[in-house]
């Protein structure tokens, strides 16, 4: 049953560009990119209870790393580019994770919020490298002899990477690290008493979360094709938090559902122009009121399990 559903899902993902109008291929790519960020954020917030309002910053680091690398060395295989983006962003995450160890709740949210602003400022001020406010055009990603120039080619790249990231996240919960993270979420004191090194695992959660977001950032750069500091404002970070809350904290399928839902919603509300933020906000509040555990719990509830 489960295997059949998985196989069906995979076939649907692969067939998507041939079955749907062209614009939805692009939109699906964007949804998958956001889903990877949401999974990364959920590993941090849902698993270890550390809320971050700075993930747009990590996304920017990943995106600019990938873009600059590809601009300088256009022949770099995209797999390498994404790995470098993940590494750089992971190191930044590690760097942020250490000072954030002492902070909790609101204070942590403030610190990560500040991080988001710092990244945007840094991009503006390092204009010899990033072209500052003028923005950066991103060359096409290359995979061996192919340049991924069409929406469909980029979609398959994004989906392939997405599947790997999802698989890794699902399996993380079954590893020693995953169990340690979950233990921290349930109770820091209890976790510590059972021998979980709090500082190490909380910092590690930051790094893993940053790695996910860095990979997503690299994909974001190729999918959108243009980067500027305006792309990574604080509202984007808030969008990611909204995605995991709507999807369900601590759930990988929930992260995917939340990301897809909000990406499509945000896109379809663009036509409401100045009312967009109002409608978006109202829908978020309604979903929090009536679906407090997110899509993931609502789904379990419908299946007759206790949430």
């Amino acid at each position: 049953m489960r295997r059949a559903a998985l196989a069906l899902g995979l076939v649907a993902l692969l067939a998507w560009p041939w079955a749907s109008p062209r614009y939805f291929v692009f939109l699906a790519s964007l949804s998958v990119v956001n889903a990877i960020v949401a999974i990364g954020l959920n590993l941090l917030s849902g698993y270890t209870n550390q809320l971050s309002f700075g993930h747009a910053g990590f996304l920017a680091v990943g995106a600019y790393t990938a873009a600059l690398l590809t601009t300088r060395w256009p022949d770099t295989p995209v797999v390498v580019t994404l790995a470098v983006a993940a590494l750089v962003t992971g190191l930044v995450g590690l760097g942020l994770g250490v000072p954030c160890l002492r902070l909790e709740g609101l204070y942590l949210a403030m610190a990560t919020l500040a991080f988001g602003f710092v990244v945007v400022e840094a991009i503006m001020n390092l204009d010899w490298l990033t072209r500052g406010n003028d923005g950066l055009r991103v060359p096409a990603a290359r995979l061996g002899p192919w340049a991924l120039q069409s929406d469909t080619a980029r979609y398959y790249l994004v989906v392939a990477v997405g599947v790997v990231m999802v698989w890794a996240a699902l399996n993380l919960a079954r590893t020693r690290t995953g169990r340690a993270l979950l233990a921290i979420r349930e109770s820091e004191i209890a976790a510590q008493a059972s021998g979980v090194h709090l500082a190490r695992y909380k910092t590690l959660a930051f790094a893993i979360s940053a790695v996910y977001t860095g990979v997503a950032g690299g994909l974001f750069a190729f999918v959108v094709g243009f980067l500027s500091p305006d792309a990574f404002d604080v509202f984007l970070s808030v969008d990611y938090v909204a995605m995991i809350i709507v999807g369900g904290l601590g759930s990988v399928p929930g992260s995917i559902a939340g990301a897809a839902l909000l990406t499509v919603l945000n896109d379809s509300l663009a036509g409401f122009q100045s009312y967009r933020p109002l409608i978006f906000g109202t829908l978020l509040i309604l979903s929090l009121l009536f679906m407090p555990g997110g899509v993931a719990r609502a789904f379990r509830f419908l299946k007759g399990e206790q949430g």
Partner: protein
Amino acid sequence: MRYQRAWLVALGALLAAAPAAAEPGVTDTEILIGGSNSFSGPLAFTGEQITKGGVELYLRVVNDAGGIHGRKVRTLWYDDAYRPQDAVANTKKLVEQDKVFAIIIPQGSPPVVATLDYLEEQKVPLLFPYQSSPVTRGKRWIFQGMTVSDRSSKMMIDYLAGRRKFKKFAALYQDDEYGKSFLTAFEKDLGRHGLKLGAAESVKRGVTDVSAQVAKLQATKPDVTFLVLVPGPAAQALKERQKIGWSDTLMVSTGPLTDERYLALAGEAAEGVEGLSLWPDPATSDLPGVKLYREHMQKYAPRNEPNRYSMAGYFAGMLFAEAAKRAGTNLTRESLIAALEGIKGWESGILPPLTIGPDHETQKQGFWVRVEKGRFKPVTDWLKGE
């Protein structure tokens, strides 16, 4: 057999009814155009005004008069909140889903630049983007809106160094494409007059404290200080100058800066400031086109107030309608481009007679203004930007 014939007749009728090669966004009764713009985010007011307050205002006039060759023009706007990724998504949606005929007046360099290559590749006309950097040059499907920086610079320097005989120049500029493209142009144009830009200080975007830069510029004693900024920091520079009593320099604002918001922010510190204005005063000008603009606003949007953004959008709507009319009943993207390129000496009643030609620039002139009692008073007639 009888059925077969009936089918054939029906098929024939269908084929006859379908136009030979349907142009996206154009039917017998309608033309669909649209754009991605800021309806939320930092430039929401400008976005709302250029699109709904401007383009739509003029198109309502056109539609009420029967449309263009019997086709009513419908508009479709999407919000991008000044984010390039949303601008890309919206533009793709407009082209691929909504199948618009053309994109009109998107705003700001980052969102516009993010979509340039895509639109050029898809051969979709990008009409009059509202940004001043010259990145839009040399593209077949793009017609620039705002006066490009190097033309502004030529008008400013020829007037100040040529007619007014000023010798020492300095500039306070925003550290991005907008500021730097002006700086390069200033240096080149001053060179033609055998002069040099004495000093230049940069301001990062979003910074509001410019006191250090103003003090440094004062020390170089320039006759003229250019402000290549956006309203917030520019108004701050004027207030700072007043505070430190720096009165022996003429402050001059660039075209994109010379607007009412800048005046309102600077208050009395703006008194005596000069600048290049790209538009006649929307509230007081007696030009026939501007009067008509005010009448139309009175009639269709009485709750709105005349302002340069809505006038820029109104002008864009007017120019589109003119080109679509010239393109004839068989309106295609190709014929629209040809019609725009063929515009010569066209009278809008708002700007001087317009000739577009192969340079694809739809705004090339400005005139000199001085701030007196909180308003821009014209000092010269239209200056030459070519």
